[in-house]
């Protein structure tokens, strides 16, 4: 009898220890097969961060484990996988996503099922504003913030007549809308004389370039990226569209989009991006060295996003002292942490992180595209005032 009791007690103890050592699981969903150029460096980024956290003893004495899923760029698959991760894999929270609409779909699942969701990459403003809610947080600077960084630079140009070219979906449309509004606030004399809306990935570059040239703008705001960008750049260069015409361009400085253009990178475009070679702050150097040592490759923008995502989650759980959803959500609001880009904060008011971006000019260095004359634009400076945010964000 006594032996049995002791045995039972020992088993209970073992079970408790096992629970304490069981890893904290993070459910991660991304478009691995659909957006490989971004997601592979991104996967490296979160792998590195997870290893670093676990080497330092994990969080709350438990190791972190990322359970990753491929949504194949379909929002309905992402929602199904979210359910699978939460109910089958018993993850403590959801994270990731690339496309804005998939981010919104998972965010809505999180709202409905009261699960914490840390969106890493989707840029849509709706995620933290119009469709914002208690359980969703976002890491990257939103479309509005990046457009604001560029509008600030654009306002310094003498140009008055502007043309825009943007992919015809939510991202392109909201980027153009934000840029227009912010630039005209600073420069009432500015007018927009032409708009082009190529379908994402299917730009008819020659015809688009011609159509812009017809309006004879003083400057151009570009939102196209990915496969569309090199086509637009080549046609525009050949047809002389960019001669004596400044171009302001969203995301073009990110290695994912800059590197494929090699020596044909257009010179002097004002862009947001990530000049990984040139950032020599101690935080960034440590990150870059660790990344190169681990993967024998240089970091892309996606690597930083994946890395900071895991570091943010680890810091949030540590601050909450628990993996209880409500406690984690409370701890994430106002969470401050250090990143390779410098200190950031997940704002309590709208759950948007103040991670910034680098604003500079494109140039060709040693036959490769690079960013020069850059500065770090702290995300906190490019957000609307609190009253405007409250007006946009549904209040509980």
């Amino acid at each position, binding site marked *: 009898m006594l032996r049995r009791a002791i045995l039972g007690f020992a088993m209970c103890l073992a079970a408790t220890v096992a629970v304490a050592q069981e890893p904290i699981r993070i459910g991660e969903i991304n478009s691995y097969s659909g957006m490989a150029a971004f997601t592979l460096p991104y996967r490296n980024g979160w792998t590195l961060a997870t290893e670093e956290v676990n080497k330092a003893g994990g969080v709350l004495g438990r190791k972190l484990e990322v359970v990753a899923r491929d949504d194949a760029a379909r929002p*309905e698959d992402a929602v199904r996988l979210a359910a699978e991760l939460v109910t089958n894999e018993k993850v403590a929270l959801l994270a990731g996503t690339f496309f804005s609409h998939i981010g919104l779909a998972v965010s809505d*699942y999180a709202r409905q099922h009261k699960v914490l969701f840390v969106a890493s990459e989707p840029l849509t403003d709706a995620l933290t504003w119009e469709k914002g809610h208690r359980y969703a947080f976002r890491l990257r600077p939103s479309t509005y913030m990046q457009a604001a960084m560029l509008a600030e630079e654009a306002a310094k140009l003498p140009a008055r007549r502007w043309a825009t070219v943007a992919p*015809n*979906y*939510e991202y392109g449309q909201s980027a153009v809308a934000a840029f227009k509004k912010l630039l005209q606030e600073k420069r009432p004399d500015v007018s927009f004389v032409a708009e082009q809306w190529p379908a994402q990935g299917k730009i008819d570059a020659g015809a688009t370039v011609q159509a812009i040239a017809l309006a004879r703008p003083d400057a151009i705001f570009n939102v196209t990226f*990915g496969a569309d960008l090199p086509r637009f750049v080549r046609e525009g260069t050949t047809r*002389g569209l960019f001669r004596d015409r400044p171009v302001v361009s969203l995301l073009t400085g990110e290695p994912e989009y800059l590197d494929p253009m090699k020596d044909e990178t257009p010179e002097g475009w004002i862009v947001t991006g990530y000049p990984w070679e040139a950032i020599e702050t101690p935080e960034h150097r440590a990150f870059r060295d660790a990344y190169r040592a681990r993967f024998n490759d240089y970091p892309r923008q996606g690597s930083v996003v994946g890395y900071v995502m895991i570091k943010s989650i680890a810091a949030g759980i540590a601050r909450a002292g628990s993996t209880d959803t409500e406690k984690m959500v409370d701890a994430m609001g106002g969470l401050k942490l250090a990143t390779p880009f410098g200190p950031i904060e997940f704002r309590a008011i709208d759950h948007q992180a103040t991670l910034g971006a680098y604003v500079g000019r494109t140039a060709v260095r040693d036959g490769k595209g690079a960013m020069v004359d850059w500065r770090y634009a702290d995300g906190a400076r490019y957000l609307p005032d609190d009253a405007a945010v409250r007006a946009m964000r549904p209040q509980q």
Partner: protein
Amino acid sequence: MDSALATLRLMAAEPSFALAQALTGLASASSLFLVAAGLSIVFGVTRVVNFAHGSFFMVGAYLAVTAIGWLGGGAAGFWGGVVVAVLGVGLLGVLVEVAILRRLYAAPELFQLLATFGVVLVIQDGALFLWGPEDLLGPRAPGLRGAVEIFGQRIPTYDLFLIAVGPVVLVLLWLAFRRTRWGVLVRAATADREMTAALGVDERRLFTGVFALGALLAGLGGALQVPRETANLHMDLNVIAEAFVVVVVGGMGSVVGAYLAALVIGVVHAFGILLFPKLTLVLVFLIMAVVLVIRPAGLLGERGAASRQGAPEAPLRPASARLRWTAAALFAALLALPAVAGGYVLVLAVDVAILALFAASLHLLLGPGGMISFGHAAYFGIGAYGAGLAWKWLAAPMVLGLAVAPLAAGIAGAAFGWLCARASGVYLAMLTLAYAQIAWSVAAQWLAVTGGDNGVLGLWPAPWAASPAAYYYLSLVLCGGGILALRLLVHAPFGQFLRAGRDAPRRAEALGVAVGAQQWLAFIVAGAFAGLAGGLFAYAKGSVFPTYLAIPRSVDGLVMVLLGGVQSLSGPVVGALAYVGLADELARGVALWRLVLGAAIIVLAVAFRRGLAGAVGDAAARP
């Protein structure tokens, strides 16, 4: 509209601009033609609609970038690289033909479409594996980098080169088919395969040659795109949709027609961008729909042979006692499912039920109807949007939303079915695809109403159906009821008339069956049930997105029906179960899952044409 008028005013002030824009359109037309010509030739001779043609185009671009890199810069390196790429893609074409398509020439079109779609998936992952995820920028063509000024407009010299390439290839093809012995034999084999073989011609080798030629042209198209764009992993599906449009508008099998259609589309597109910059996606499909409604066989196409069906089927029998008992036992087991399984199993079960209804509705058209619908996702998506928009704009409760879904999709089925009335076979497939693409473009680009890509969010079930078990029961009842209703309809006179119209349209007409009306009705019924599935899906996922009516969803439906077996009425249910299970397992655990899925689809189309339910039925029928 104002901006369109302003643009017109600008153009009137600068007439040379219109010329430049036309030249730009002609250059795009040439690129389009190169891809479309190969597709059209392959179809004209082998009657195979090759979905993988876009993949050949993509491989051509990748190979060219790599080969030019190896051979070094300069004119010799560039053009040498193009030649290497073209020959490489030709070889790939031979491989695909010998390994897969050769076994499919006698099969119904559907299996050919599916097998080549499997090839698309395999090549996608193969390219990712070989060339990596990053877009590859190749060099520009030496000597053709600059631009010339024509009436003050800068036109890239490479565009002028492309404008010339189109007609040159057209003439060469014409000479090859009209003036060479090989061409004469190919045309003979096209007209009468058996007779050509009887005269001692190895027609298998001829077909391989034709397929290689088609692949070669696609490879050339891809390689010549290198100076204009990066080689990237999205090229295949981007180009194939437009190439289909060109081939169908021109008339399938007609190379001259393809050139004409490419010209029309290239130029209309170039000016369309100016006047309606937001409608770029819809424009090409609108052109195709208009042309096909007026000329069902395309601009220069001949009225094709009637679509081929598989072997004649045995007459339908009411379900055997054994099948009834099995179904009843299965239903009882499904009722008990929430008691034993929780959470994710129920989520998956809801998906299976919904997709089974979707597949069953498609089966009505494919099986008893004998009509290939390649755009069935349209009804699924329209049902989902019906429910979603009723909720978003009218605050309709769930029950009303689920009633709106089949209604909206049924109306869409009536409209599309009416517009498709004169088409059959591959033309019907392409026409349904065009309507689905138009519906998709509307959903994706009409931001004010549909919310565009961001979709309709927050569409969760009413409180009484919110728990996973409750929603599972709701789906089970509605989907099970829908599948049963479809089954009853197939056994009713309506279904018998439909089958008669499929197997012997003239005899059926002579017996007084209004075949056209029955087929139209089938479109409406299939649309309505697909819409119901879409509505349920919308509430299960809490949201509606344009992807619900995109091409991959239509393909999902086809794969499920074929996996289960076209000739079996229980096929769609078995197919949905197998497909959801397979896709779920693969997506969770396998890195190159598209490769595995593609290979599975190919094997299915080549070796197991009767599907899973068919195989089980055969085993059961054996003494």
